[in-house]
């Protein structure tokens, strides 16, 4: 089983993969409408908005939690190099 390189979601079924393509390393939620993977900024903003919407967190807390999560995902390693 693969995990999405951009958000960590497990990808088990074809419908979990971007464009329903099991060859892809990212999931349907991390793909743009044309099938390409969202950029770092797009993904980050999307996750921050989602965290605020679903958990009601204060913006700066949501930003830090999202940064913590993204720093552990293969797709975004270059953005967190010290």
């Amino acid at each position, binding site marked *: 089983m693969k995990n999405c390189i951009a958000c*960590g979601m*497990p990808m088990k079924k074809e419908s979990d993969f971007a464009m329903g393509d099991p060859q892809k390393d990212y999931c349907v939620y991390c793909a743009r409408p044309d099938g390409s993977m969202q950029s770092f900024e797009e993904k980050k903003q999307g996750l921050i908005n*989602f*965290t605020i*919407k*679903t*958990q*009601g967190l204060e913006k700066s807390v949501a930003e830090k939690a999202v940064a*913590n999560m993204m720093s552990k995902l293969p797709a975004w390693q270059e953005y967190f190099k010290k």
Partner: protein
Amino acid sequence: MKTKRQVQKEATRLHILETAYQIYAEEGFSATTNQIAKAASVSHGTIFVHFPTVENLIVCLLDDFNAEINGQLHGLSEKNEQLETFLEAHINVLIRYEAFYKRLISEVNSLPQEAKFVFINMQSIVSFHFNQVIERCKNEKTVKEIPMHIIFNSWLGLVHYYLTNSYLFTEGSVLTEYKEELICNFIKLIEK
């Protein structure tokens, strides 16, 4: 292919994590690395070969826990299942890890900052699936127009209250005993 040494190293790391999980579930997060080493039958120094700091050990443990929860909840919200089915699945996952989760929610405020962020991300996994179910219910106009974060936090608040005060309700597994009551009445609160 991994060398025998690498396989052994990974096995030891996993064994330490599994033991830490047990010890923290039983004793809380103030348990010492000495206790974990003793229970795991490894030297104290071995712990720090794999985890440079206690904070790193806790964060790695919570990361693994997140992955476990993620794997178990995944797919539930995409099968057009009912709100009740999702809430039941959430509680069933928590029952599986009840002692550890209870410690975690009781002590999260005193954990290192990074562990707190991992905890938020753990709830994000749940809220991701929960949100899909609620969005569908809202489209079908079967739940009230309440903001998603209030619905989610109310559910978590209810579950966490019973867990952290379980002594008020039972000597056994509070989630097992009160699962049906919590689910049924939570749905009554938010349904139209």
